[in-house]
């Protein structure tokens, strides 16, 4: 149903560009892609509004508070107002900062976030580029985020930022490995890195059932990847004030936040696609469109992230490293081994 819906729009757009405006084939393709990119960015930003509101509301509910409730219905307009405030703030660059790097650092992170979104489908066929190495592309782009955090920490000329940046590098590089390994189990079962294939393979059974351990490992690793509590060592408010973005203010600070929440939505979407069946409806409830199902699953994942963040204290950096290298990586490797044996046995039985 929706495949036709979204694709009809895309086709109609392309036809209109080619026939109505007289674009060449390439130009029409490029324009359509540009419009899609805009839609993706808009999707991230709209999610951001909801997410910041949800984070404030959820954290408040966990703490027996009511959260923002002054502006708009249930405080929903608090974040747009905050953005207006942030836009009006002075853009402070520290005196001895590495100015160029300082200025582009937050934008760099935002760019990686948007690039990662290129391969993330939001429904059957609703995707910018359905690469056959989609998952690989996502992971590769995701790992470059480390560089921009490091840039932010290093260029600020602030000791707290520097320590925060260093911590980020150590943490994100360590936790990328278990995250990738945990996804490998699913990839082995599907036999493809294309995300739409992964979803198609989950028609009958979500991969969270055979890959429960991988799901847990992925969850823990992504909490560390997105720098959220209890693994938010890079920010480390209690000892590092705000970590790598201590010196940022105004809109540059807002871009850090936007990129982080964008990452959060991205990893939640990947989790829903890889483990929770993507846009497949559970229990045969197909009258609800797949797009809605995917959104529900994404927000369920986000609720989990927030629940964990607002319950646990922060872990120490050496424990974090121990946990990553000595527990998560062996577990995810063992999971790959068990999955491999399972697939082998399955093939033997089936023939």
């Amino acid at each position: 149903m929706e495949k036709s819906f979204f694709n009809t729009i895309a086709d109609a757009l392309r036809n209109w560009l080619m026939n109505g405006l007289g674009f060449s084939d390439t130009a029409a393709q490029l324009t359509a892609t540009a419009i899609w990119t805009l839609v993706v960015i808009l999707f991230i930003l709209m999610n951001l509004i909801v997410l910041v509101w949800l984070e404030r509301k959820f954290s408040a509910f966990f703490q027996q508070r009511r959260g923002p409730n002054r502006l708009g219905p249930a405080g929903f307009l608090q974040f747009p107002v905050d953005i207006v405030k942030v836009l009006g703030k002075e853009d402070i660059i520290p005196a001895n900062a590495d100015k160029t790097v300082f200025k582009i650092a937050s934008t760099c992170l935002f760019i990686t976030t948007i690039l990662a979104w290129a391969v993330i489908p939001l429904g059957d066929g609703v995707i910018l580029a359905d690469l056959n190495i989609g998952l690989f592309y996502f992971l590769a782009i995701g790992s470059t985020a480390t560089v921009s955090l490091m840039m932010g920490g290093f260029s600020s000329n602030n000791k707290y930022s520097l320590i925060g940046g260093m911590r980020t590098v150590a943490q994100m590089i360590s936790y990328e490995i278990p995250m990738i390994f945990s996804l490998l189990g699913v990839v082995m079962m599907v036999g493809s890195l294309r995300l739409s294939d992964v979803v198609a393979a989950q028609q009958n059974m979500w991969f969270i059932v055979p890959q429960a351990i991988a799901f847990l490992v992925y969850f823990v690793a992504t909490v560390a990847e997105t720098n959220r509590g209890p693994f938010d060592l890079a920010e480390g408010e209690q000892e590092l004030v705000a970590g790598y973005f201590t010196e940022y203010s105004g809109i540059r600070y807002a871009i850090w936040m936007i990129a982080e929440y964008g990452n959060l939505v991205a990893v939640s979407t990947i989790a829903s696609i890889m483990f929770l069946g993507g846009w497949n409806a559970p229990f045969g409830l197909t009258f609800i469109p797949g797009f809605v199902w995917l959104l529900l699953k994404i927000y369920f994942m986000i609720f989990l992230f927030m629940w964990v963040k607002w319950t646990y204290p922060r872990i120490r950096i050496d424990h974090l490293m121990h946990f990553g290298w000595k527990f998560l990586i062996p577990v995810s490797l063992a999971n790959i081994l068990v999955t491999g044996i399972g697939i082998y046995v399955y093939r033997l039985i089936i023939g």
Partner: protein
Amino acid sequence: MLKTQELTLNLGPHHPSTHGVFRCVLNLEGEYIQKAVNHLGYLHRGIEKLAESRTYTQFIPYNGRLDYVAGMLNEWTYVHAVEKLMGITEEIPERAQYIRVILGELQRLASHAIYIASMALDVAGATAWFYGFRDRDEILDLLEMVSGQRLMPNYMRIGGVAADLPEGFIEKCQALIDEFPNRIAEQEGILIGNEIFQARVKNVGPISKEMALDYGLTGPNLRASGVDTDLRRDEPYGIYDRFDFKVPVGEKGDTFDRVLVRIEEMKESVKIVKKALRDIPEGPVMAKVPKVIKPPVGEVYSRIENAKGHLGFHIVSDGSTKPYRLRIYSPCFVNIGIFPEMAKGIHLMDAVVALASLDIVLGEIDR
């Protein structure tokens, strides 16, 4: 040529986790602290000097400004010292004594609730922090009901307390005290029993028995190091000899022990308040003291078990209405002295936790 060098990090005076305006200069090797130097005095208000220009009664409200999370206990210490100087400790009416114990222990509960809460915040457990402050707020409601203010009650008077308990206080207090063990259990569930928290605090900043005694630590910090001492039991002041309570003692003296000792102490405080509420007699709340207080010439040192340790007042009287000299022996000031020793060689994240575990209040350190 590439070489490494130590990083000097200025922690404070405005930093999220220095509990006020404490400044500490750290020499870091990587993120491990090589040397820490305390710098105090950012909140100095000259309270000891102020006392010399105030009459004995007029100085009572200033005590709330010392340790501003345990104002009632500070006032008690001061009025106890003046009563000792005047030699009227035996004349305080029964009811006033009981009221002092009830409010003092409530204040201790509030102070320890803040301790657990700020400990939670310093390991980034914001939710446990809110729960701690919720508990404390309900105690402050009771104190406000009695004295009219939440932080600086100005309720203790030389010779008794300012006024009798208001109507309905006993019932409200009873209800809260019956509820309080659940609140402690909740903190134990969300924070103390949490494996991440335990990993953060166990074996962090251990203080041995000898070291604790050498540095002159007092109160819960000393008990956590395994020294069995509590002024309420060892030198009972007021009517503490009538109460039977355990003195929790730690073993290793690490941060986890310091948290546990406070949790246990809260449970004991609940018991004390319960018994005091049951036994409280009717009667006057003020002893017969002259309107103008003129203690005899002489000097006195009196200390009681504050929420943070031994709080002592040394008062020198020249027979006039104002103290000639007043010296405050502050437990926080003594406890903070051990921080450079604790911080040596530990991680920056641990140093923050170790600092929080000492339970410092800058109002009392800088005075």
